[in-house]
């Protein structure tokens, strides 16, 4: 097979990418669950997380080379910085671009168009304010090969991504399954009208859902930026790929988004050795269309309302 030569290396690097996709996909899936709306502007939430992490790391790390426990601490702070930026932008987005539409019962088309407008506004103004050149995030660790698995090297970066992503996904899982807020989210996702009759504050739940999605997307932006740098256009492709992943796993399904993200990352990585790079995106979109036509509910089915 075309990818057997570098299988383990490709698999591991694909998983690392997949974790990032999964975090972003969770944001799409959460919002879709409660609003049945594709939040086009989520890619900009991801981008602002990258910038948030960049600013935090610029201040704290600068040109130093931390090691050991300091590295871990700085990573946590960086992730929080990215997450906070993402959450804030998501909150403002919901308030400014979507809530007024909800108040007037606007048709679906209006939401989508507003989302597109918000997306264009956000990334262009980021470009204007923060410059249009790519910026490197000073890494709080030294990237090197930590160990080998079946001959494939595992870089520090891969572990960082996997670690942060797994922790956040676990927290999310627990949040949705066990807390009151999670119950509220599931209720609204299942049937908004009945939920409001049962005393759930719909507006508050929706707002909080956006924020949670924003926290995850923002953290993903920071992780992505550690490897690829931060730039105002960074949201478009990962956003689209992550949406594909969310659909693949079952839009509205949290575990589906995680699975979809990892799967897409791996398939993309292995596919690179089989298909010329220039045709990659065609394959990705082809898969999306196929999935939507053949199994629109995705691999794990659609409902967020069921057990998360």
């Amino acid at each position, binding site marked *: 097979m075309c990818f057997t030569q570098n299988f383990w290396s490709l698999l591991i690097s694909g998983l690392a990418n997949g974790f990032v996709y999964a975090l972003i996909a969770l944001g799409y899936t959460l919002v879709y669950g409660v609003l049945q709306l594709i939040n086009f502007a989520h890619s900009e939430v991801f981008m602002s997380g990258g910038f948030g992490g960049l600013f935090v790391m610029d201040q704290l790390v600068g040109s130093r080379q931390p090691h050991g426990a300091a590295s871990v601490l700085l990573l946590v702070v960086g992730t929080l910085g990215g997450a906070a930026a993402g959450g804030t932008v998501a909150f403002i987005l919901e308030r400014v671009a979507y809530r007024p539409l909800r108040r007037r019962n606007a048709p*679906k*088309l209006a*939401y*989508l*168009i507003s989302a597109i407008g918000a997306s264009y506004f956000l990334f262009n103004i980021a470009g204007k304010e*923060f410059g249009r050149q790519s*910026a490197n995030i000073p890494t709080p660790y030294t990237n090197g090969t930590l160990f080998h698995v079946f001959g494939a090297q595992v870089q520090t970066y891969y572990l960082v991504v996997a670690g942060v992503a797994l922790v956040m996904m676990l927290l999310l899982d627990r949040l949705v399954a066990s807390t009151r807020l999670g119950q509220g989210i599931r209720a609204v996702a299942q049937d908004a009208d009945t939920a409001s009759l049962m005393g759930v504050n719909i507006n508050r739940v929706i707002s909080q859902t956006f924020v949670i999605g924003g926290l995850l997307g923002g953290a993903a932006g920071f992780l992505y930026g550690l490897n690829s740098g931060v730039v105002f256009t960074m949201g478009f492709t990962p956003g689209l790929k992550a949406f594909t992943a969310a659909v693949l796993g079952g839009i509205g399904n949290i575990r589906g988004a995680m699975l979809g993200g990892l799967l897409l990352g791996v398939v993309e990585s292995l596919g690179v050795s089989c298909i010329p790079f220039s045709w990659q995106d065609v394959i990705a979109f082809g898969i999306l269309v196929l999935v939507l036509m053949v199994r629109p509910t995705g691999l794990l089915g659609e409902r967020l309302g069921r057990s998360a």
Partner: protein
Amino acid sequence: MAVPAGVARLLRSQDFRRLASCWAIGLVVDVMTGAAGSNTAPTAGLAADLGHPRVLVFLALGTVLWLGLTAYGRRREQVRARIQLVSTNASRLMAPPRVRYPALVGVLVLAILAPQLVNVLLPATKVFWQQVLVDDVGIFVLLAIGLNVVVGFAGLLDLGYIAFYAIGAYVSAYWTGALPVQPPFHLNPFWTFPMAVAAAIVAGVILGAPTLRLRGDYLAIVTLGFGEIIQIVARNLTSVTGGPQGVGYLKTRTVNGQSTVVARQLTVPHFSIHLLGINFDWTLDNVPYYYLLLVLAVGIIVAFRLLENSRVGRAWTAIREDEVAAEACGINTLKYKIMAFAIGASTSGFAGVLFASKNGFFDPPIFSVQLSILVLVFVIFGGMGSIVGVIVGTAVLQVLPQSLRHQFPQQDLFIYVGALLVVMMIFRPQGLIPSRRRSRELGLAEEGVGGADAMGAPGTAP
């Protein structure tokens, strides 16, 4: 430190919240129109905008806005009644045919005289503005009218509209011999119109047939993907489309290290007529192209107007207003959706041929998602479903940035476009010059009746 109850109540009041929002809007506009930062000095722009006295100007403007809104709020009923009165009187004035038709003729005359008006009003920059009239306004009016059929008449969101534009352009390039792969015989660009339109329709049906069954938001993503795919294909198939280096046919023969050009056609030729004693060649001059565009546009507009009021148009309206009811009445919604898609695609392909001939040279990066979104903005801004609105919207949104291009950096364009979209959706979703039916639908949708578009499974409350 306890906040006095009065102050707390003031801060929570509706008025103060509105004031705070107006101030926030003022600050955002300040930043939008202010200085830029860079990635080595990320706060430079913000500091210059917000730390500078100019921020007070914008806060003041925000306060003025708040005063206006508060005043409007108090007198809302009176203002609305007055607007209604003016509007009804104007409608009554314009209703009789003896006023309507001369007005129509007047607009047409204005359109015909536009290049001459440019010559007279702007003699120093007339070539530039004539080019804007043709390249920026003319071709995009055609595109917008076509997208209006998809988004406005049928209510489907198509984010990959430029794909058909690209198909039209490349087909035209092929049949006129401007691609590395040569056709069996060369055609005059006029004859490439049917080829390009046919190709675009086929592509539209191929895209639409499997995907128009999907939910509206999925359709949007799929069309986005299709737009990207066409651009990628154009870029990758170098031996067919010229790849990243664009169109152009160049055959060289290398003898002893010296290469000589054997055959060459670097651009798509301009239109020309040599028929029945009429001999005319279009050249780089903008004015003949403008008139060609005008004639074609008028033809298409008349055709679409007839379509809108026909059985097909009524079917689209029914689908838009309540898809389930339409199905129940026996309308084959899929067939009509595909028809809308195909008609939109054909118009786009048509515009592609005009673009290919006018510009001569083009390459894949031109056919970007951003361009599709731009056309969508024109339709939304002008008024989806309203042919007149769409034309005016395109004209305004293309001419305005060009007139302001020395005052504002060109790269900031999409900041304003994005903000415009959000604001339009919140305050005036029916657009600048709305179609009356659409306004009514949107009004009804807000009250909970019908969906106003062919987007969602009906009954799903957002």
